[in-house]
């Protein structure tokens, strides 16, 4: 399923965080969103997945605008793995993953055998099959991430929206998760922090800076030391992998702050609508 974002503005807490972003994600491809903290990645993903309504612009799934879909219809198209999780009441891992079947079921309905099989399959696929009887709050950070990803998989949607799913994961599980995402044949929008991981795993990269989309294209075309300097304010060196010839970035030091912007937090300049590139 193709996801098309057009001229999207999104506010959060009364501030405009995302400004005029247009981006298209072809069916079955992985779009990685990169950008410093506070650059608007989460806000953009929230708007795309319908958690917060965008303040302007449109999001379309194939040809259907998001506004024409009910919450339930939207949940049958997009599964979200967010950073937030409430813990006031305890929930076993299996029940948590089964929540992903809600958009496909009825109100009071029992979980069907196929729902349970799908949930167990999703858990097994993320390497968390052994956690099925555990309590979610007793899990480590990395185990939680995998269980939450299993829930997104169990929701069985053509589109996945993942907000920093590799947080807390060790390197093996990071690679495993990204390989799973790639192999799933779904349309994926994923916020990441690791540039090399993004370059390795994404079909396309969108770079956000101060709420603006400042670069969009294949990793090889857009990721370079100039971009990293202007967006992240970090000096870097690019090296080529000895076997794959794939470019890798080594991060050297913070860039010297240019005068006038030295103390300005990226969020503070959103209102002026400054672009860096």
């Amino acid at each position: 399923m193709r996801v098309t974002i057009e001229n999207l503005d999104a506010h959060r807490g009364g501030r405009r965080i995302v400004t005029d972003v247009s981006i298209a994600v072809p069916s079955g491809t992985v779009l990685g969103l990169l950008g410093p903290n506070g650059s608007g990645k989460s806000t953009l993903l929230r708007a795309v997945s319908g958690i917060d309504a965008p303040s302007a612009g449109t999001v379309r799934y194939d040809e259907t605008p998001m506004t024409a879909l009910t919450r339930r219809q939207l949940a049958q198209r997009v599964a979200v793995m967010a950073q937030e999780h409430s813990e006031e009441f305890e929930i076993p891992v299996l029940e948590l993953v089964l929540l992903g079947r809600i958009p496909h079921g009825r109100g009071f309905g029992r979980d069907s055998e196929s729902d349970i099989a799908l949930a167990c399959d999703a858990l097994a696929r993320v390497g968390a099959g052994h956690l099925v009887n555990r309590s979610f709050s007793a899990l480590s950070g990395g185990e939680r991430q995998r269980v939450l990803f299993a829930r997104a998989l169990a929701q069985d949607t053509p589109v996945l929206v993942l907000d920093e799913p590799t947080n807390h994961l060790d390197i093996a599980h990071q690679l495993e998760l990204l390989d799973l995402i790639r192999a799933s044949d779904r349309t994926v929008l994923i916020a990441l922090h690791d540039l090399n991981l993004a370059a390795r795993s994404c079909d396309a990269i969108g770079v956000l800076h101060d709420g603006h989309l400042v670069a969009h294209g294949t990793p090889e075309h857009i990721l370079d030391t100039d971009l990293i300097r202007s967006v992240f304010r970090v000096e870097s060196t690019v090296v080529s992998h000895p076997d794959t010839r794939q470019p890798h970035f080594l991060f050297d030091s913070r860039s010297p702050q240019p005068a006038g912007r030295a103390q300005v937090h990226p969020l503070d300049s959103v209102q002026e609508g400054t672009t860096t590139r």
Partner: protein
Amino acid sequence: MTSVNHRSPDPGSLRPDPTRSRPGTEGNPAETGPNPPEPPRRLRRRGALAVRILVPTLTLSLLAVIVVSASIGTIGVPLVDSLKIIVGHLVPGMPWMSDGSLSSVQDNAVWQFRLPRSVLAALTGAALALAGALMQAVVHNSLAEPYILGVSAGAGVGAVSFIVLGIGLSSLGIGASAFIGAVIATAAVYVLARKGGRIAPQRLILAGVALGSLFSAITSYLTISTDAQNVYSIMFFLLGSVSAATMHHLILPAIALFAVGLFTALRARALNALLVGDEAASSLGINVKRLRSGILVAAALLTGSVVAVSGGIGFVGLIIPHIARIIVGSDHRKMLPVALLAGAVFLTTCDLLARTLSAPSEIPLGVLTALVGAPFFLWLLRRDRADSVGVGR
């Protein structure tokens, strides 16, 4: 370099160890393959068994307590006879109703006095437990219960004003003004907790606590400034009692309980999603704002309808849902029916004790629920099982 070649399988690339993960090129593991996997054999669905045993057990206990309740009192009625009287009134044409084997005094005691109050106790317990469970789920706070909304305090102001202003002591009048007070309190809390079209759970709790204190202060002032003869009636209402129950009193709580029960049954799965947070629920296709408002209004109506007839019976709405959660887990499809039945059994039993322990005088029901409930709840809290449902955090 082309744009995709670095993703092809290559032993030298950053691929994870193939023995411990599935590389992305091994077909399509994200779709259910030709052989959908079997769920693990030793899959433990917490509470499934408990529910299958608990629901029938609780239902039978409820019926048993009601029949026992009908037999005990100043006019002794054998268990079999009270069962006969109850069945005889419900099913027309029973032979024993007309053959003179049962005295009209016994019939009166069972059908006119004892049964209505037991049934009202059951309805009240069920309604308060359900209302508490619903509020805890929608405001993400395990301290939430009907009384935190200030609903009972509002009902108290209504009832006490009616008594103090000297309009009379008719129980119907007290009930009606208590209900109006409960509705006004609910509306006030709701309006105060709303901001920008949504109800913030924490603000709702704080507004409820603040308004509750305000209403209690008004009630105290009215109580202290009225004639001494009214004080007993006031205390009787504030401490809660089902002793004045007649069949008429059952209608409103029964309708409210049935309607709200049906309303929540259809939303049990959505309530489960709400347990993991508003955003997660929202991304699972649930209209969180509408669900929360609907459930809160339902819980308030439920509380108002029982507080109006039974007065201020505390504690049931707080402890019964927690007990249900400790036994069967947080899944509302299991927990709500268990909480509802347990609330009914608990309060019916308390009412039986309230009128027998120190007969012929009566212990106020609200006093007894706390006396019986608090130690049991504290004992349950200290067990490991409580920690496993998140009580220990």
